[in-house]
């Protein structure tokens, strides 16, 4: 303010008044709702209209137009034990998912999801989702990775319901169309900055309207976070540029933990170079992975499931082939996905989207040549910890404690149904089932029109202060430079195969990159459509996710699911499940790794604190569906 006063002698009063007005005032509009949903992808839309259907006055705050959320890019399908292709049972799906998660998934949440799956898919079909059909007119189900019959003993299961190879696109458009029937208030292109927390309770969200630069506080009894994943922490990923982990960061800044962030899924078939996704459905329709010798190498790594083994197994196999010199291309750094042995008519009906993607991004005609592919970051198994009802939890003094007023669903949440590795086509299922679960839980616990608890008038002050600081940041590093440093560090130090020394180096480098955020420089000083500012806010969010990911990975000294350590090649459970259990001593909690990581960050210093939480091993109803005891995982 001193500089402003001195300048007043030189500048005219009006200019001065304008300067002061522009730089220091942020109008804040207050809204009151029964429930607010942050994010309008598959999970967000399902939660929003589920709440509206139950009579709640709901707001949906989203930084993207609903049909532009990353759900639209999902290709594969939704798993459900409908039994259209062969006899099927949801308990077999339950077993496959528990095994796929490498016994890190919470079995009560998995029980809930797999039991609800057929009803969820039928509900979508009733909403008008144009599923592919069999000759009899039933929903077409294709084979997908990790799905088996009779608890793994009956061969490949066909349980992935799909819409050609653009299921996510159809799902999102169907949900969006359905949501228009209800009176949800959409706040599109509003960037959610932070949660409004008071006394450990969540009372709403504060957001920036990108169109006119005003701040909005949405006060609500119930807040649902459905903001998606954070693929953009890595240099090469299949995610959109908007996948920046905003929800995870908001929760971290509120002092709450994030769970299992070190488990990042590398999808086996991302196009080499571009990083665009080629769905697992290709392998489900009969596509095979081949190395430089033309060998179908997956037969050696997964004799039963072959190319349809679980994604982490396939990614690791591909990386090993490349490392041992059997990669293809001039640098021998990728492998081929062969589809030209399949009938062209099948490719045209079942896989039209990837035919076009391969042509545009790899210049390849799938009916004649194989597609060059490489494992690429695709999904985040970790996220905001919740129970099977969708309520956000913290783990204090050995017990789970529900955070009042806060819920999470979709990729942003970690229920945890995917554990250490997600099976293909389970994510779209996760979105609709848990989106609906959040709405049902809120309807059970609260009534529409409930009086809101009082909120401090200055709630959200720190978020606005942070926004102001970033808007006028005048250091020496651009946002894009810091982001590139972070992405390269993550790509080089926390990839498919991880080693202790490389991870430790990565943690130190990430700590430096985090500190370098102090020197950020932004160029646009305006408040209307300031994309420089929004990208910088997104970078802050990405940073919080990245430090938790790499620190969690460095601490976890075992290999489980998608987290593969070269120096600790085995899974370390409470018993050694490769030998008979009699006579074995159960290891204490501190000495084994079958537990969830809960990570907290101090946003000022970037220091990560890690705690651990036990896995829930019992299903919701042991008579109906017995839990699956841990065993060795092989395909």
């Amino acid at each position, binding site marked *: *303010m001193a500089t402003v006063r001195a300048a007043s002698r030189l500048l005219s009063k009006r200019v001065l008044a304008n300067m002061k007005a522009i*730089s*220091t*005032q*942020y*109008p*804040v*509009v*207050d*809204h*009151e*709702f029964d429930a607010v949903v942050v994010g309008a992808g598959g999970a967000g839309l399902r939660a929003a209209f589920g709440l509206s259907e139950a009579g709640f*006055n709901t*707001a949906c705050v989203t930084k993207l137009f609903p049909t532009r959320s990353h759900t639209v890019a999902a290709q594969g399908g939704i798993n459900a034990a409908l039994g259209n292709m062969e006899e099927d049972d949801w308990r077999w799906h339950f077993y496959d998912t528990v095994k796929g998660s490498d016994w890190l998934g919470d079995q009560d949440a998995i029980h809930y999801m797999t039991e609800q799956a057929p009803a969820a898919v039928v509900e979508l079909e009733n909403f008008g989702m144009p599923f592919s059909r069999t000759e009899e007119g039933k929903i077409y189900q294709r084979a997908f990775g990790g799905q088996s019959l009779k608890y793994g003993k009956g061969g490949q299961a066909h349980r992935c319901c799909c819409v050609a190879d653009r299921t996510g696109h159809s799902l999102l458009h169907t949900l969006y169309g359905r949501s228009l029937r209800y009176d949800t*208030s959409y706040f599109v292109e509003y960037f959610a900055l932070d949660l409004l927390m008071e006394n450990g309770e969540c009372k709403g969200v504060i957001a920036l309207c990108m*169109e*006119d*630069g*005003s*701040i909005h506080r949405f006060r609500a009894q119930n807040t649902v976070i459905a903001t998606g994943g954070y693929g953009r922490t890595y240099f090469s990923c299949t995610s959109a540029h908007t996948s920046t982990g905003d929800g995870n960061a908001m929760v971290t800044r509120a002092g709450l933990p994030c769970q299992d962030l070190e488990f990042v899924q590398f999808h086996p078939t991302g196009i080499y170079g571009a990083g665009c996704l080629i769905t697992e459905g290709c392998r489900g329709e009969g596509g095979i992975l081949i190395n430089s010798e033309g060998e179908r190498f997956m037969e050696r790594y997964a004799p039963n499931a072959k190319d349809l083994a679980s994604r982490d197994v396939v990614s690791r196999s591909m990386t090993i082939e490349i490392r041992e010199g059997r990669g293809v291309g001039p640098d021998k750094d990728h492998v081929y996905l062969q589809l030209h042995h399949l009938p062209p008519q099948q490719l045209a009906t079942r896989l039209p989207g990837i035919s076009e993607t391969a042509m545009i991004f790899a210049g390849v005609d799938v009916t004649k040549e194989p597609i060059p592919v490489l494992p690429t970051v695709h999904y985040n198994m970790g996220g905001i910890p919740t129970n099977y009802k969708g309520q956000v939890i913290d783990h204090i003094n050995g017990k789970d404690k529900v955070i009042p007023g806060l819920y999470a669903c979709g990729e942003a949440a970690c229920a945890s149904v995917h554990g250490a590795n997600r099976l293909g086509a389970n994510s779209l299922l996760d979105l609709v089932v848990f989106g609906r679960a959040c709405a049902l839980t809120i309807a059970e616990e609260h009534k529409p029109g409930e009086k809101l608890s009082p909120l401090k*008038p*200055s709630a*959200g*002050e720190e978020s*606005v*202060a942070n926004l*102001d600081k970033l808007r006028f940041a005048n250091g020496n590093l651009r946002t894009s430079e810091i982001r590139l440093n972070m992405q390269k560090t993550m790509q080089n130090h926390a990839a498919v195969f991880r080693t202790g020394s490389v991870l430790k180096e990565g943690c130190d480098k990430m700590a430096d990159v985090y500190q370098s955020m102090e020197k950020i420089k932004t160029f646009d000083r305006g*408040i209307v459509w300031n994309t420089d500012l929004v990208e910088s806010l997104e970078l802050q969010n990405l940073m919080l996710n990245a430090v938790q990911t790499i620190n969690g990975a460095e601490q976890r000294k075992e290999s489980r699911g998608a987290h593969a350590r070269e120096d600790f090649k085995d899974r370390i459970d409470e018993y050694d499940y490769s030998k008979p259990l009699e006579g074995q001593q159960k290891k204490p909690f501190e000495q084994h790794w079958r537990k969830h990581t809960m990570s907290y960050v101090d946003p000022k210093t970037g220091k990560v604190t890690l705690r651990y939480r036990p896995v829930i091993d019992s299903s919701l109803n042991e008579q109906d569906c017995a839990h699956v005891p841990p065993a060795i995982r092989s395909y």
Partner: protein
Amino acid sequence: MFHYRTGAFYCFICLSDQNHLQNRAMSRHSKLQKQVLALYRHFLRAGKDKPGFLPRIRDEFRENARIKKTDVMHIEYLYRRGQRQLQQLRDANTKQLGSFSRGSEPG
């Protein structure tokens, strides 16, 4: 560091017509000017019962009155944005307007 106040400041649209203030002889408004004046009236009516909006509405319209009446693109953009903001103001869930300001003024 940041002070919260209810009232004042709603950074949005506006426009007005200098002509009306300057040329009494030419007192007929153009269609666009009439639309803007109508919008201003609607805003004032809508903002009457909710605390904090009126001062800001007035400030913004006065601020944007400086725009030349030939700059039609700008005026129409602000008009469209204003209509959206008016819809939001009318919504029953919008309650009040405050502001966060940076500075050394006491709370």
